[in-house]
């Protein structure tokens, strides 16, 4: 089947991709700085539970994702307060539990969803209704980040220092978890549950070597995110592949390219 670039499906997919890239670049920087990539991964896995429950109860996949992931995120934060077990162990237990239980719920109730498109993303599933939600979520994320920028930076640098200067680190962690949840919900349709974390960390990691301030890292990461989304979606249409993996492969190539360039060209 031949698809045109200006097909409404593709336009919607591109608009969705732009929404994802605009938030993923900035939020991804925090994921890299705070070493939260496993946290993001677990949150994304939990979102499949949200999809299953949302459809089962009848509130829809998007609302299901936001509620379940928020609950999951706060549960993780709460568990992290007890220092008996390392965080990655807790995350491992919870995320695989969430992933498994959601597959069981889906198969027991014979919920008709295209699992493949939720796991790896599919631009053809984006409706105009989705787009409104994605851009609303994206604007909320950007506003939350902009208004709390310096607190977020200081807590990321050092929690004790932030505490000494009157910032409540717990509030900032809750904020970041909420932001990450919204980003996961925004990205599911395009990138897919299994690959969301890479959309967060690869553009941020790509820009790291090229910049010298937190703001420029967020900016350049957003540019790399946009570039990956554009190239990825065009490629996936052209060669008929799932959008998520195609975008991730493109952004990984960009990462490798800048890494080689910075090692071999800049060093000379």
């Amino acid at each position: 089947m031949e698809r045109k670039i200006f097909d409404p499906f593709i336009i919607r997919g591109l608009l969705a991709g732009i929404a994802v890239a605009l938030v993923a670049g900035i939020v991804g920087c925090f994921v890299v700085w705070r070493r939260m990539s496993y946290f993001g991964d677990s949150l994304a896995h939990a979102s499949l539970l949200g999809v299953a429950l949302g459809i089962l109860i009848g509130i829809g996949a998007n609302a299901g994702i936001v509620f379940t992931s928020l609950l999951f995120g706060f549960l993780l934060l709460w568990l992290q307060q007890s220092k008996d077990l390392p965080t990655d162990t807790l995350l491992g237990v919870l995320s695989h539990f969430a992933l498994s239980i959601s597959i069981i719920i889906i198969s027991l109730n014979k919920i008709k969803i295209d699992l493949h498109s939720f796991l790896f993303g599919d631009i053809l599933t984006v409706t105009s209704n989705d787009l409104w939600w994605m851009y609303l979520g994206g604007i909320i994320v950007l506003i939350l980040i902009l208004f709390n920028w310096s607190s977020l930076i200081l807590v990321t640098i050092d929690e004790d220092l932030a505490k000494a200067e009157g910032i409540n680190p717990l509030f900032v962690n809750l904020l970041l978890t909420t932001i990450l949840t919204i980003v996961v919900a925004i990205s599911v349709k395009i990138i897919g549950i299994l690959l969301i974390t890479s959309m967060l960390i690869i553009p941020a990691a790509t820009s790291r070597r090229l910049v010298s301030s937190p703001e420029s890292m967020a900016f350049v990461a957003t540019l790399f995110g946009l570039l990956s989304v554009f190239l990825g979606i065009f490629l996936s249409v052209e060669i008929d592949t799932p959008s998520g993996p195609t975008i991730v492969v493109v952004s990984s190539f960009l990462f490798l390219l800048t890494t080689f360039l910075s090692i071999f060209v800049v060093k000379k």
Partner: protein
Amino acid sequence: MKTFNALISANNISVIKNQKSILRDIDIEINKNDFITIIGPNGAGKSMLLKCLMGFYKPDKGDIRKKKNLKIGYMAQNINIKNNMPINVQRFVTVHKKFDEYSLKKVILETQIDKIINKQMSVLSGGEMQRVLLARSLLNNPDLLILDEPAQNLDISGQINFYKLLQSIYKKRNLSILMVSHDLHLVMVSTKKVLCLYNHICCSGEPHQIAKDPEFISMFGKDMANMMSVYQHSHNHNHDHDHDKDFIIGEKNI
């Protein structure tokens, strides 16, 4: 009631955590131009006392009074900035702070960080990092500077340089300093009052007095007490040392 002149005064504060008494009936008053050093073994409640005074922890008993609009600068012990965040010294010193250009320039010159101001935080040496942290704590022109073991991670010459710098800032800025430090022999010259803490205040007073206090000697041993009188001697020439051997050890250590 007498007028309140102190910057901060804590009256009879106690902190109990997990049924353990961390602080017991502490009275402390910090006045203008004080230089108070708190010493004490690990787990003596030194950091907790600082937290209470800065208002991050509410003591279970007692009250803390602060002068109106008191500006406190806090210098963290050490921060562990990771290489994955790109941020230079100037940005770090000013992030989340209200400041004016003049104060910034002044602080940069005072703490001698002008040469490293554009360096990335992740490549700083231990001594540079401490000066940058000090600069940050001074940026809002505090009346009181609170430091928690500021030179803990430095080698001996780094420690000496840091305390020299602190002394010069103390003199120039006319501020008050409250510091937790184990490097008592190095801060002896600047310190006006030593407070020896072990959940309660064991003893307090001028450095050369405290070295003779039986409680101090029982906590830190005779060697430390001797060493302190020696340092006191070698800088202030209070002829009260007992024998020359200590004096030589003292000079060597400098």
